[in-house]
């Protein structure tokens, strides 16, 4: 991201160390990841070293340094989802797509992540696909969803930024 874009994003922030994480979050929300160029520019703006920024950003699981895949698939492995078979869903992803957490298919179509609790534990096991949360998932339902993703690779993959784009949660009918 260029300097001017970052200045635009940080309009209401004070240029101090405490603004680093909010700024990284905004950059990632806009660009989908944090590029080397963005880190360089943030370092100059906040007057801190690039090393420091990498040090901070790599501590938090939210930040990524590679271009995101087109579709985002997340499997919840929180405790409630674990006891309701979350691990089996993760295994299914590996079997179907050959992906481990943090990996993207070679064609850049599906990015996969294992997450800890999406706060819908009473509806476990849950899976999030492109911001939509699907409840009471089973391997069978997941395979169907994965097939949809691999056949129509057009499903939009934008990050939720406005109210309309917030994760909406739908129940999978059996």
């Amino acid at each position, binding site marked *: 991201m260029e300097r001017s874009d970052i200045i635009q994003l940080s309009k209401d922030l004070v240029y101090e160390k405490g603004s680093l994480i909010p700024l990284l979050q905004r950059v990632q929300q806009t660009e989908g990841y944090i590029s080397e160029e963005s880190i360089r520019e943030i370092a100059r703006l906040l007057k801190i070293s690039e090393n420091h920024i990498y040090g901070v950003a790599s501590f938090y699981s939210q930040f990524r340094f590679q271009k995101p895949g087109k579709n985002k698939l997340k499997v919840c492995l929180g*405790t*409630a989802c674990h006891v309701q078979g979350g691990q089996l869903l993760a295994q299914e992803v590996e079997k179907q797509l050959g992906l481990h957490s943090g990996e993207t298919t070679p064609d850049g179509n599906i990015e996969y992540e294992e997450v800890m609790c999406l706060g819908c534990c*009473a509806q476990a096991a849950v899976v999030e696909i492109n911001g939509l949360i699907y409840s009471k998932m089973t391997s069978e339902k997941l395979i169907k969803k994965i097939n949809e993703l691999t056949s129509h690779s057009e499903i939009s993959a934008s990050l939720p930024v406005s109210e309309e784009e917030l994760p909406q949660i739908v129940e999978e009918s059996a």
Partner: protein
Amino acid sequence: MQRFNQIKQNALKNWKTITNSSLPVIYIGTASCGRAAGALKTLEAIQGTLQELNQPAYILQVGCIGPCYLEPLMDIQLPGKPRISYSKVTPEKAHKILQAALVGDDLSPSLAVGHFGDKEFTKETGIPPFFDLAMLKPQVRIILRNCGFIDPENLDHYLAHDGYAGFMNALEKGPTGVIEEVKESGLRGRGGAGFPTYKKWEICRNAEGEDKYVICNADEGDPGAFMNRSLIEGDPHAVLEGMLIAGYAIGANHGYVYVRAEYPLAVLRLGKAIQQMRQAGLLGIDILGSGFNFDINVKEGAGAFVCGEETAMIASLEGERGMPRPRPPFPAEKGLNGMPTLINNTETFGILPNVLRKGGKWFSQFGTKGNSGTKTFSLVGKARHTGLIEVPLGMTLRQIVFDIGGGTIKPFKAVQTGGPLGGCLSATHLDTPVDYENMRASGSIMGSGGLIVLDESTCIVDLARYFLTFSECESCGKCTPCRIGSRILLETLEKIARGEGVDEDLDVLYRVADTMQRTALCGAGQTAPNPVLTTLKYFMNEYQTHIHGRYCPAGVCTELFEYRIIPEKCPGCGRCAQVCSSDAIYGKKKEPYSIDTEKCIRCRSCYEVCKFDAIVPVPVSQPMKVEVTL
């Protein structure tokens, strides 16, 4: 004051236009859990039906009322009638119920789960009162009083339900008077440790500092817990009012809500609520002419469990890696930017308006001596009735799991409390009262309120392994006991789960756990061994079966069992063969099926779909190949 009375009168008027209106009012729970069950689709159907019938009505999108297993919940209140609740309302069902109610004046009593009116109405219609449902009857709603009843995005609704009345009382009492009231209430922090709230406030009030901060801990990192999310999504102003009261009492001017980034709806609702407060003059300079200045900002977490720990949270707010710092100095003396900082849990703040509104004495009548008041829990896992509950402290686990939670379908095995730093309690603990001291005495902790019910299909060794995977991954790496200790615990548990365990491994677990408890820097490392220690203590036989019997009775550790189909129980429906992706199940319809254990990868798909409990895990028949690992 006058200004407050004015906005309050206005709010009451606006609320009454809805409740006293000649139009129907339709409530729909659209918090994250409601959405999880499809509430937004139901909402669309409601809007569509009203349009089709050309019937104007109020639609209130409310927060979670608790019984998530019944969701989506839709309620209808016809003019002059009480509100009636319907469960599992799919779009089609919504259409049917609305049409019957609005056109045919038929309230579909057979589909209703409960009403909010008086007993007379039950006699008339046969619909039970909502709060008489098995899951709700033993509950007491103080913290959750507005969740499910008001539109959380409407300040007027909160004001009309005595919102900010607690803060007004606080202004009258003065800062020390407020702390007295909190002391009288006996309130203890709901973030897990149960530290007396008034004491923390007193330290913070007396600490020197040109600036002071109030931080609301809404990081809720425990997987399987969602109480704070529900409270913020359902009644954000209650939490913010609590922060306002705290800020006033300790003399702070800045507040932050540190909320998990995984909770986008909560972040959005907090932002809206803060904006409304600023507009109403409840935040900013000289609030309501009291001379008190206060502002609140939202900070999103970035996905690190340890940031729920107060000193790590401060590091994160300062733009650093979220690593804990040694205490003392405690944040109440030297916290954010080196200034006195009060950190309380979201629920602690949510309770405060009630304490200030109705008095500390009133609050302390609930619960037990030393553990006063109510506490919310997220009741999940294998319980029949999953959802969010609020009960007086001191209620027994049995009442919570069986009366409220409805028990389990397969036989009950354990209940896990306190998240990854908590423990696992067996059936013998069911009569333990849930309070800070008793939970600790049992080896677990109360934690922030996650209660995960487990039945016999959950493997205890696997569960301990699961929590250690979490702790090992979330260890910030600063201190060696936690960084290396969690790794050794995890590797040892993995070894046992693979069937390679020996008796000495149990000693390793005890020794490492003990070292971590005594020497880790922060609470995360000190308590990370809890899941291992409690399971060793209460479920030793299951460890032994894994080590000596090379068998996982729950059928979870894939190398330690194989599946069998019990011919007498299998009617030959063929579902298992259908879902098997390894072609390991064969047979003819209407005759018992069989499993080829060579081909079976033990993915559990067949076990999950079998409705007849015909598929069971049994010990592996051939002698195990024991591989030597270094």
